């Protein structure tokens, strides 16, 4: 936790013993160690899984890694004239869902930031909107999804709506909270320099809120991800959520696990991208 120029944003932080020298070393030694640790963890997890699968011996309980692998091959190829799962390859299911998640998240994030900023800055607006947002974000999507069908039909629109509404609240709440705690000292500094209301929001409030907004975004994307099955309960094939749901109803646990892996891994990648963007955009982290 020292004030260094070169501290790599991904360098490891360890409170209590970090110095410029340690930091400088971290990126290299750290990366290798990191990869090793992760590989080790993967191997251990794999071992545990294999053992668990063998001891229970019930593929509905815990399908073996081999069975899941087999399903990966099956769902990624055309075999016996059948294309993948339910007529679509795994990658197609995933692609369709990713598209939905990305569009939904994007709408939700844009809406969330907007709502959050307005809620944090326009008090008259907040008084009315904040309870509405709190109310809505408590509602279970499964409960109101039928209404969406009435309003938006059974195609893409209701799914995108559901995902947007799932992604919006974390961003809105995080943004509003961060905007609400904008640092008095810097707001005053900007105003002393002649900044107007909009300038203050753009140049102080938003940059200050950026780390929290990013946290909100990362949570939001996670929530959108975990809502994909709910969104695809209706007319969800092709779609990874629809696939999982279908497999679940037929107790094809191996396909369910495969779907979970596809979801989880792509989620990991997206989160890594978000974190990279975050580190780029917020060099002042820890300096305020």
């Amino acid at each position: 936790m020292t004030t260094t120029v070169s501290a790599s944003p991904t360098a490891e932080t360890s409170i209590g013993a970090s110095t410029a020298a340690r930091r400088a070393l971290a990126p290299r030694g750290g990366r290798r160690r990191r990869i090793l640790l992760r590989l080790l963890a993967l191997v251990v997890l794999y071992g545990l899984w294999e053992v668990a699968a063998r001891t229970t011996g019930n593929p509905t309980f815990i399908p073996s890694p081999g069975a899941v692998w087999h399903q990966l091959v099956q769902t990624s190829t055309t075999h016996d004239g059948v294309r993948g799962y339910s007529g679509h390859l795994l990658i197609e299911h995933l692609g369709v869902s990713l598209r939905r998640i990305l569009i939904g998240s994007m709408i939700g994030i844009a809406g969330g930031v907007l709502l959050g900023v307005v809620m944090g800055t326009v008090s008259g607006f907040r008084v009315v909107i904040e309870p509405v947002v709190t109310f809505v974000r408590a509602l279970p999507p499964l409960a109101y999804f039928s209404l969406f069908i009435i309003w938006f039909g059974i195609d893409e629109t209701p799914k995108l709506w559901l995902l947007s509404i799932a992604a919006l609240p974390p961003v809105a709440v995080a943004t509003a909270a961060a905007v609400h705690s904008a640092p008095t000292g810097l707001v005053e500094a900007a105003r002393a320099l002649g900044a107007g209301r909009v300038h203050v929001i753009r140049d102080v409030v938003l940059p200050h809120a950026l780390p929290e907004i990013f946290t909100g975004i990362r949570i939001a994307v996670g929530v959108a991800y975990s809502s994909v099955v709910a969104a695809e309960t209706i007319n969800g094939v092709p779609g990874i959520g629809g696939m999982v749901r279908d497999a679940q109803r037929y107790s094809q646990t191996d396909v369910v696990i495969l779907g979970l892996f596809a979801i989880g891994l792509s989620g990991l990648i997206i989160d890594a991208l978000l974190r990279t963007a975050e580190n780029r955009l917020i060099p002042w982290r820890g300096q305020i």
Partner: protein
Amino acid sequence: GDGAASGGDPGRKTIRIAYQAFPSGDLIVKNQRLLEDALPDYQITWTKFDSGASINTAFVAGSVDIAAIGSSPVARGLSAPLNIPYQVAFVLDVAGDNEALVARNGAGVTDITGLRGKKVGTPFASTAHYSLLAALDRAGVKESELTIVDLEPQDILAAWTRGDLDAAYSWLPSLDELRKTGTVLITSRELATAGKPTLDLGVVATDFVEAHPAAVDAWRKAQSQALNLIHDDPAAAAKSVGAELNLSPEEAQRQLSQGVFLKSEDLASPEWLGTSAAKGKLADNLVSAAQFLKDQQKIDAVPDLATVQAAIYTVGLPDALG
């Protein structure tokens, strides 16, 4: 959670029953506490489930002893990879006019062949789904020639009203609404006559059967009592069913009247469960349902007839239904 299976423990005097919210004698047994009265020293818990799939899951988890479940999930449960150790011990009802394929007025569909290129909604993995595919098969329409959309009944209604669907295979109560603005193409009753019946069954975990045969007898007796009530005093039956389903007695009676409820003496006939000496045609029916699932790539292998017959509980039939 007492997920740990201990249904095989004869000393444990509890019965965990899974029921579903469709009109049947099962709800009468629950509502009139027939089983509780018959087995006063058993502690009986009733748990509502909303699909056969989740009941199968609960059986795998060892969380239930007895369940009301559709024939399609039972076929799945008896097949690999699930191979759930349970026994079919009762036929609760046979789908009749309460499940049907309806075409929306204005969609220009008058018969099943007219569904080509259209959009049809049904809840996947349900008996209705099975019936829809059976109906298409009978009419020589390939599944790939139309779009089948996975929708829960209440969502079918919503999409239907918007005009997003051309037809739907669904059940009561949403079926009532569909019929108001549509024409029935085929009902499950007709399919049943044509050899593709869909049924609601009562199944009992095998280890429970072995540990508590007397309790299973009492349960079968209570179920036939309920069946008899449906035939003999429809109003009283409807009152109980209505109370369980949050429906008015009249509405419940109307729904009951559209289902097919066997007479208790028919259960042991060769058409259904049969007897220990000669298992009934129910086994063939389940095998063909499994074959259908295999064709759909939803199960790995079709169990042979003998295996399925072994999973039909006929001990003491026909007398046990007293």
